[in-house]
């Protein structure tokens, strides 16, 4: 494995730390994207169909979350929660902040997809006598899913990238693990590049998974 001080040697030494960091990044991303998608489905439905006061409330949530930098959301959540003696580890604060952020973006994605389905589809479903939920489940959602996939995948990639911000509050995800490694061996360029490659792998996996799902919906044509 080469001499101490060479990249391969140091990478071998740091392999567990880096893989652990990558696992934390993947785990955090997964949890946040799942919760965020769930919030997004409900939020998007509210934005599109809810009665006025509720719709405004959700609109305010979405616009506020999208108007504030994620880092501010994270720091606000982290310091704010500790202030109220809610003992929540940095990981938990990160999940809360990123899920709220992800949920707002997904809400907008879902709303956009639903509103892009021609109203004639709703009318045809109404004419058959389908009620609201069945119209949504059988007619609107399958078509909207296809349209929301590309922007949802983009959002997912953004979330993976955003998890790096948790390094600021001390979550040892991939970026912080990389920096800790660099602090030991001073191989700045090599290890930052290595981290880039690992992020590329995660994001490429998401894109490919997304493309796979998209192909399953490819039969919907207009």
């Amino acid at each position, binding site marked *: 494995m080469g001499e101490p001080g060479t990249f391969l040697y140091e990478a071998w030494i740091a392999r567990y730390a880096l893989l652990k960091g990558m696992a934390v990044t993947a785990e955090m991303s997964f949890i946040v994207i799942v919760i965020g998608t769930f919030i997004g489905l409900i939020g998007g439905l509210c934005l599109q169909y809810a009665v006025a006061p509720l719709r405004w409330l959700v609109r305010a949530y979405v616009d*506020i979350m999208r*108007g*504030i*930098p*994620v*880092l*501010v959301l994270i*720091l*606000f959540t982290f*310091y*704010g929660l500790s*202030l*109220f003696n809610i003992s929540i580890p940095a990981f938990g604060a990160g999940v809360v902040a990123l899920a709220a952020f992800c949920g707002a973006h997904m809400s907008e994605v879902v709303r956009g997809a639903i509103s892009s389905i021609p109203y004639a589809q709703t009318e045809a479903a109404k004419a058959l006598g389908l009620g609201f939920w069945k119209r949504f489940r059988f007619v609107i959602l399958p078509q909207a899913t296809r349209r929301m996939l590309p922007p949802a995948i983009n959002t997912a*990639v953004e979330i*993976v*990238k*955003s*998890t*790096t*911000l948790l*390094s*600021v509050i001390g979550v040892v995800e991939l*970026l912080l693990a*990389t*920096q800790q490694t*660099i602090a030991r061996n001073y191989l*700045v*360029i090599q290890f*930052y*590049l290595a*981290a*880039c490659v690992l*992020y*590329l792998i995660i*994001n*490429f996996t998401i894109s490919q998974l997304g493309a796979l799902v998209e192909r399953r919906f490819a039969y919907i044509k207009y």
Partner: protein
Amino acid sequence: MLDYNFNFSVIWRNADEFLTGLGLGLGMALISLLIGSVIGLLCAYGRTSRFAPLRALIWLYVEFVRNTPLLLLIFFVYFGLPEFGIFVFDKVESFILTLALYAGAYMTEIFRAGLNSIPKQYVEAAMAIGLTPIKRQTKVVLPVMFRITLPSLSNTLISLFKDTSLAAAIAVPELTFIARQVNTNTFRVIEAWLTASVLYLAAAYTIAIALRRLERRYAAIR
């Protein structure tokens, strides 16, 4: 119920720093947008080149940057360039350089889509009246593309502005950095982050509204 006594006097005492931090963020976003536009435009034209290695290089740049976390790029440039013996940049310049490169990748895609969406007839009409290839671009293609891409450019500017919060990670005294400083120095947690959030939101909305006006003035030719 948790009780928390608000005390905004800390904020008033640090008002200057908050506003300077906000101004710094806006300035860095704007400069990055300008440099990024130049990069994006050059790369968008580069993608249409017949020279395959150039196209591949630009593709690599775009995909690399879009799939790598911004914070990682910031550290990479800030700590990595000195490794190459480049010491010419201070924190702010280093951050602007990173954000511009980051913006450039996104804007390459925006401009490429813009160039692709220009109706062929415009170019043919320009040819028909005998404009030179350069004039065809500067007098016909670019103005039309500018109008088509204006909404995306507005969104990019707002994103970049929010991204300037990451400069706090390398201790650039912009808004997030100031808020964190006030937070740790005075323990006025809610006040500090609320102020930062409101300032970010207000600035983002002001930009959004101003740019929407601009968009309406230059409403895309249909």
